C-alpha cells in the first residue's frame, strides 16, 4: 500500500527519469511538474479539467494533470511535452501554423501524441473526439486539425506494394 500522509518527498517517473519531488498529498500532478520539477510545458488554464492546457501522458494515455494528484502518479510513467524530441506532431504544428499564442499548444500536442501512439489509424471522428478535450482560443482549429492529420499520416507504416 502506498500512503502519503503529509508533505514529503515522492518519486515520479517523468520523461524516462526517476525524479524526487516534495509534494503535499493534496498537490496535483500539474503543480508537482511545474513547481517541483521545473517542467513548465504543462500549463494551468483552468485547473478544473476543462481546457486541456495541462495535458500529459500517463501510461501512454492523455491525462489532464490538474485532475490528477501527484501521489496518484507514483509508479506510473509520465511523459510531458519536454519528453518529446522533434516528434512529427511538433514539426507539423510548426509547419502548419497550428498555434498563435502557444499557451494551449503543449496540451494539444500531448493529446495528439497519445492519439498517434494509440490509434494511428484514427479518422476524423476519433480525432475530434480526442481533441475536443482541449481549448484553443487563437486559431479557430483548422490548422490544428490539419497538423494532427498530417502527423497521423506520417506515423502510419507505408502501405507495402504487392
Amino acid at each position, binding site marked *: *500500500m*502506498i500512503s502519503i500522509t503529509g508533505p514529503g518527498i515522492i518519486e515520479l517517473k517523468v520523461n524516462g527519469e526517476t525524479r524526487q519531488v516534495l509534494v503535499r498529498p493534496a498537490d*496535483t500532478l500539474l503543480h508537482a511538474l511545474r513547481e517541483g520539477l521545473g517542467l513548465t510545458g504543462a500549463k494551468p488554464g483552468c*485547473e478544473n479539467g476543462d481546457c486541456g492546457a495541462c495535458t500529459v501522458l500517463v501510461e501512454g494515455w492523455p491525462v489532464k494533470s*490538474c*485532475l490528477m494528484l501527484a*501521489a496518484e502518479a507514483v509508479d506510473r510513467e509520465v511523459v510531458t511535452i519536454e519528453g518529446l524530441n522533434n516528434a512529427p506532431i511538433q514539426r507539423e504544428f510548426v509547419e502548419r501554423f497550428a498555434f498563435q499564442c502557444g499557451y494551449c499548444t503543449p496540451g494539444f500536442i500531448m493529446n495528439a501524441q497519445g492519439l498517434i501512439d494509440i490509434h494511428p489509424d484514427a479518422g476524423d471522428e476519433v480525432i475530434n*473526439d480526442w481533441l475536443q478535450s482541449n481549448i484553443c482560443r487563437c486559431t479557430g482549429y483548422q490548422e490544428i486539425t490539419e497538423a494532427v492529420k498530417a502527423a497521423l499520416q506520417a506515423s502510419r507504416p507505408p502501405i507495402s506494394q504487392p
Partner: protein
Amino acid sequence: MIPFDFEYHRPATIKEAVDTFAQLDTAGRNPRYYGGGTELISMARMNNLSFGAVVDIKDIPECRVMESDGDYFIMGAALTLTQLHEDNSFPLLAQTGARVADHTIQNKITLGGNICGTIIFKEALLPLLLTDSEAVLADPSGLRTVKIMDIYHEKLEMNPYEFVVRVKTLLPYLGLSHIHVKRTKQDKINYPLATICALKADDQIRVACSGVCRFPFRSLAMEQVLNDRSRAPADRVEQALHLIPGETLDDLEGSSGFRQFVVGKLLQDIINNLGAS
C-alpha cells in the same frame, strides 16, 4: 490548488482498502474512496467539498478486471470510461461513457466513480439500470452482491464503509438493440440537457434518463406507456413526459420547458428506431 490538506492512501487489496477506510473514519479523518478523482479534485479546489483522507482503489486487482465468466460480463469499478469504450464488449455502456465530460477526462473517470459521485448526471448508471446489472460491494464485513436497481433510490444506497468493487451484467443483455442519445444546450462537451439510453428486451423498450431531473432514473411507468402499442407514438411520448419522476430541471443549461421538448423529441426518435417489432 486545493487549499486544504488530506492524506492519500492507495491500498493493494480490498481488505486493506476497507480497513484503512474504517480506521481513518474512526480517527475522525472523514475519508473518501477515490476512483478517478476528477470530481473530488475539482470540488475540493473550489472548497465545495472537504475531506481528510482519500483511499484510492485503483491498485486493487479486483477493481480492474474486465472479463466474462460465461454468464456475466464483469467490470472492475476502477476501469476508466475509456477502457470500457475501447473494449466495447458492452456497447451501450461504452457509448454512454464516451459522452461523459471529454475524452481526456474519460481516461481518468472510473466506472465506480461515475456512478457513486456527487455530480447529478452519473450517466454510466443508465445502461446498468436498463440491463438489471449487479454490483459487488465490499466493506469490512466482506463482499455482497446486489442488483443495482434495488439499491438505487435517486442515489446508490450503501453501507458507511462500503465501496463498489465491480459491476456485472448478464451477457445476453450486451447484444440487445439499444440507443444512446445525449442533447446539450449547444456544445458537444457539456452537461446534458438530457441523456437517454434505451434498450429493447423481450420486445419491450426500456428507457433511462439523465439530466432531466436532479437524479438519473429508469421509470417502469414511463416504459409501460411507451410500450403501449394501442396508442399513437406521439400520445405515448406525451403521456411519458407526465411520468418523469421528479421536477424537470430548470438551470443554466436550459429551461424545464425546453428540456421537456428535447426529451419528447428524443423519446419519439427512440420509438421510431426501436419500436417496430
